[in-house]
């Protein structure tokens, strides 16, 4: 773990150095140096409204995750336990799973309006399918011997769900979340370009294209990257805490 952490810091330092060199070589306002961006970041946190936008985005992405887990995990468990239901729904999932959900942003906005729910819903769509498929496959892939063993200890359907299917699906849920974080944050950005004045997507776009405050725009990009990285680290931490056998 120490080695990994050290490597991450080295990689970060290398990226910042590259950025600094590029900024110095180009010497254009559209690429401020990391030092300038750090200054803008600090200024925007203390005096600007970056924290407010960060929290708006964080809320949307966390709410989407909670909603996706709450709906996709039980649905995946049910499909994984029932070959008949799985056979029925598999073609639908097969067709809808690969659709790039970001193209549905305008449609979702048309149907659900411009409020927070539309933005949460579009990220929910991405996470839902990812978690559904992973949990379903995990539940379906449990060895029959394990199920029979636990049944022989007296477990009926409810106990199997509590003691076997639910804990077995935890890693699949976390894997689904981890795999979707990058896409979810990217789609969040796109969703926040439409009809809102809150969120990092709006902040980045508004700072760059309207205010032409490029250091602030980059500060927004850094905040959005930090949001993704934070969620990624949190998922790793949750996996260590909840799945210590892995």
């Amino acid at each position, binding site marked *: 773990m120490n080695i990994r952490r050290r490597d991450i810091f080295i990689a970060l330092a290398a990226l910042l150095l590259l950025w600094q060199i590029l900024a110095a070589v180009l010497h254009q306002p559209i690429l401020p140096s990391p030092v300038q961006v750090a200054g803008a970041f600090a200024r925007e946190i203390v005096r600007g409204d970056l924290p407010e936008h960060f929290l708006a985005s964080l809320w949307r992405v966390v709410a989407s995750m909670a909603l996706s887990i709450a709906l996709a995990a039980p649905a995946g468990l049910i499909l994984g336990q029932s070959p008949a239901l799985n056979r029925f729904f598999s073609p639908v999932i097969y067709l809808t799973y690969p659709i790039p959900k970001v193209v549905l942003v305008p449609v979702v906005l048309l149907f659900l309006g411009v409020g927070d729910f539309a933005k949460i819903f579009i990220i929910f769509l991405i996470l839902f399918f990812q978690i559904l498929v992973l949990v379903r496959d995990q539940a379906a892939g449990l060895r029959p*011997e394990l199920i*029979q*063993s636990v049944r022989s200890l*007296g477990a*009926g359907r409810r106990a199997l769900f509590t003691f076997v299917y639910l804990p*077995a699906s935890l890693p699949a849920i976390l894997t689904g979340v981890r795999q979707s974080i990058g896409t979810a944050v990217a789609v969040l950005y796109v969703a926040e370009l439409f009809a809102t004045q809150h969120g990092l997507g709006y902040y980045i776009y508004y700072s760059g294209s309207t205010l032409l405050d490029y250091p602030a725009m980059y500060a927004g990009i850094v905040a959005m990257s930090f949001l993704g990285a934070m969620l990624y680290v949190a998922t790793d931490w949750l996996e260590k805490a909840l799945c210590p*056998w892995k």
Partner: protein
Amino acid sequence: MIVLNQVNFAYPHKDLLFEGFDWQVERGQSWAVLGPSGCGKTTLLYLLAGLLFPSAGQVIVDGQVLARPRPQTGLILQDFGLLPWSNVIDNVRLGLRIRRFYGPDGKHSPAQMDEWNARDEAARAWVKRLGLSGLENQYPGQLSGGQRQRVAIARTLALQPDLLLMDEPFSSLDAPTRMSLRDLTLSLRAEQQFTFVVITHAIEEAAHLGQYILMLGRPPHRKPQIIPNPCFGRPNFADTDDYRALTRLLGEQLQTLTAGETAL
């Protein structure tokens, strides 16, 4: 204790494995079921465990026709069936937790539950009895095959079964571990007085663990072919001429049955 009465069984779209099969096991007896791979040994065990059901006939255990797994029957499978996400102590107390989950409903757990046995102390006592002390917080993935099998035995015996079923329990273990677990199983059987049925394809294992040996050859099985082992449980049995004669007989019978001829 166990009565199989005119049992028919076939998997869907497959030929019959058992056809009008009768078999009886008395309380406290120790049986080994010996046969080659694919002959239906595990199916027989699942029928006894209430995990599969005959298409005709009855499987009666302790006077009751089986309609679901019996709370007093313990089952240990070849790959041990441990929860990979639970540590040793949680795996050992899994059965007790399932019993507490349902309460004494007579269906998932016995109608009269032993007060002490329902507590965690029972799990800890079995961990100690099976020589697993110090490994309580280890996960199955961190244990050797022999240790995993000890966990599976502790988990099952913590429920105080009156019938213990084992499916090829030692086949994936190295020879010294296999021998030590075989001896442990025999001493636990003598101590706990449960009825015992073990499935095996190993002749030596059948000779050691079976007071009676049920031979299964090519299906469908109609008439049980039983070889008694009068020297069962005798000290140093493996060093005796009786043991050598028994293993020779079992080997010959197995060969004959596998070839599809009826010798008994």
